[in-house]
């Protein structure tokens, strides 16, 4: 079982899993059962932070890094000559429990390279989840990666034990996927997604009728897209995300700036550093889709197929639509308040509550966390106002905002990105 030799295996299999960005364990509320261990807390908890600034909440690991496929962007592709190993399902279950009891983790995030065939692999993964839930009476969080091409029955089994299932799309268009991952196609990825979303929907309906009907992947499904490995535009990416949110009811789409792990492969672009800034802008745009009531075509369109790397997407949208501003803080409806640059969801809540008491002025706004140096061009409040975007013209405002930002933005960017609690866009 677990011994000194596990150290080396852990090193390889955690190292192999690290490029999967999903860190969230939030979204499920599962209470402990009598005599059992663990619960899932709705907010998710970060148990540590890696030196790259990412939250560590799960034991994110691969069952095996042997793989019969040869995806160009993946460190574990079969043509790479790297150390390979695997854990048995019992070992993974054990490690999870021991880490969990010491409060190192919120739960398990298990993926795997494809061993023999998709079904064989998926079956072993399901075994881990089943062991944890039955033998160990474990009620903590479990996220399983569905293996593209696995049978419907196995995916249905996985959904019974796991809190979340995900299938990574990785490459946003079919052509580019075929180019980089010849063993996969859109169908093998989208089919499991469809099975999962149908399963989730059915289970929800059942549970409305019978309180004790079994849950199915209760914390939903998510996926990951790799950014910058292909020539796909942000417009293509965001349209895909917004379709996934609305049609497949996904909980999250994660964006992962491409890290050149196989630089010898000339189907891939030569990059010196991962496109972190673009990745960050996509996350901001994603917040706008999910929490701010924006539509994908408001953020990117045919004339502007890519996000502005210099300014956040809410600001760029506002500068393209000066006729909607300035907005009166004391009167505007919540949806319009959300669209003001420099004002986040939290500030909107505070403004709505506070303006019942007093007419708000800029010093109130500042105390509520509104970023005035951005917001001031787009609002009027109860006092002498500064010049707004209409009077100054969008181009000038853009310049003014860029000057203000000249210093040290990259760190701030990362911080917000991995802040697990509040959507921080525009704050």
């Amino acid at each position, binding site marked *: 079982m*677990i*011994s000194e030799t*596990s*150290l080396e295996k*852990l*090193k390889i299999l*955690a*190292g192999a*899993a*690290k*490029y999967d960005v999903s860190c969230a364990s939030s979204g499920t509320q599962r*209470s*402990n059962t009598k*005599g*059992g*261990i*663990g*619960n899932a*807390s709705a*907010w998710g*908890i*970060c148990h*540590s*932070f*890696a*030196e*790259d*600034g*990412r939250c*560590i*909440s799960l*034991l*994110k690991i691969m069952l095996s890094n042997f793989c019969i496929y040869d995806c160009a962007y993946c460190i574990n592709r079969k043509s790479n000559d790297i150390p390979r190993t695997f854990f048995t399902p019992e070992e993974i279950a054990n*490690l999870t429990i*021991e*880490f969990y*009891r*010491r*409060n*190192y983790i919120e739960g398990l995030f298990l993926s795997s390279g494809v061993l023999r065939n998709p079904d064989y692999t998926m079956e072993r993964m399901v075994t881990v989840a089943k062991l944890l839930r039955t033998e160990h*009476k474990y009620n*903590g969080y479990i996220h399983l990666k569905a293996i593209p091409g696995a049978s419907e029955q196995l995916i249905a089994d996985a959904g019974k034990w796991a809190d979340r299932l995900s299938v990574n799309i990785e490459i946003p268009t079919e052509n580019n996927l075929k180019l980089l991952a010849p063993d996969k196609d859109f169908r093998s990825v989208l089919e499991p997604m469809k099975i999962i979303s149908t399963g989730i929907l059915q289970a929800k309906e059942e549970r409305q009728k019978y309180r004790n009907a079994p849950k199915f992947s209760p914390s939903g499904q998510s996926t990951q897209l790799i950014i910058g490995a292909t020539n796909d535009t942000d417009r293509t990416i965001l349209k895909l995300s917004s379709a996934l949110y609305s049609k497949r009811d996904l909980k999250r789409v994660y964006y992962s700036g491409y*890290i050149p792990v196989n630089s010898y492969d000339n189907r891939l672009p030569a990059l010196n*550093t*991962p496109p*972190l800034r673009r990745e960050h802008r996509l996350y901001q745009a994603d917040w706008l889709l999910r929490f701010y009531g924006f539509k994908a075509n408001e953020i990117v369109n045919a004339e502007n197929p890519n996000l502005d790397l210099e300014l956040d997407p809410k600001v760029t949208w506002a500068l393209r639509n000066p006729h909607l501003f300035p907005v009166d803080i004391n009167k505007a409806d919540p949806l319009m308040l959300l669209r003001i640059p420099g004002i986040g969801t939290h500030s909107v809540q*505070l403004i709505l*509550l*506070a303006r*019942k*008491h*007093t007419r*708000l002025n800029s010093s*109130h706004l500042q*105390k*509520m966390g509104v970023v005035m140096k951005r917001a001031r061009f787009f609002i009027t409040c109860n006092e002498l106002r500064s010049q707004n975007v209409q009077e100054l013209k969008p181009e000038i405002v853009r310049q003014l905002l860029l000057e203000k930002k000249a210093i040290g933005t990259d*760190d701030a960017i*990362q*911080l917000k990105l*991995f802040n697990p609690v509040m959507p921080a866009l525009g704050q």
Partner: protein
Amino acid sequence: MNVFSFDNTFEGLLTLVFDSYQQKRFPDEILSGEGSQPVLFASTNTIETDDRKAERVWNGIVKHSSEENAHRIYRVFLADLPDTPKLLVKYIRLIIDSNKNEETNFSEPVVVEFNKLHQKVCREAHRINGFVRFQKTVEGSYYASFAPMYDVLPLCIPHFRDRFADQQWIIYDLKRNYGFWYDLKNVSRVVFDDLKVNPQNGQLHSSLLADDEKLFQQLWKQYYHSICIQERKNDKVHRQLLPQRFWKYLPEKGFHSL
């Protein structure tokens, strides 16, 4: 100048509010802790904690605002900073003296200050929920110690009690020298006089640790380093999210704060 002193309990603070209203005299200065302060002021008004008075003030707060607001006041009290009692008295007066519910009136500086501190206390409690590291003992129970910035253990206990319901555990605040012990049924407050714990890293003496404890600490440390993407290293953010003051208690940091 009105100087009040109280026993540094939450009930004591609420009693202080009650007495101030009764005497129509409100504190300019508040001393806390039992007799530990030198008497700098001639006429210190020493509050006798009275649970019934405290309850009346609690109910008053609930009536003038909300139950949640009363709980928030308790959480802010746990900030355990020298100026917290004064801030709270000011806040409670604002709530009680008004006919409207003032808890959401963010145009009042004291409401803003109160909520900021509340957020800090909650954040610390949330961090402790995540950063507590249990060590398995020879007896099969689990022990953790920490030194939280604010007195937040009471806020964390329900979470640990629910999550770790099938294991015995102790979580100990080394800074305030008290902790909580769960015996599979109840949680009780404990104070140890001769704790066999290294105050530098919160680790139990090795004779008390289970055989495989060191192995799992090593595995966790290995995991921690393997999961980091070198190409994305970001020391500044790392330190912001995982402040150095926690490092010495974390196996993955090698129990070093430097």
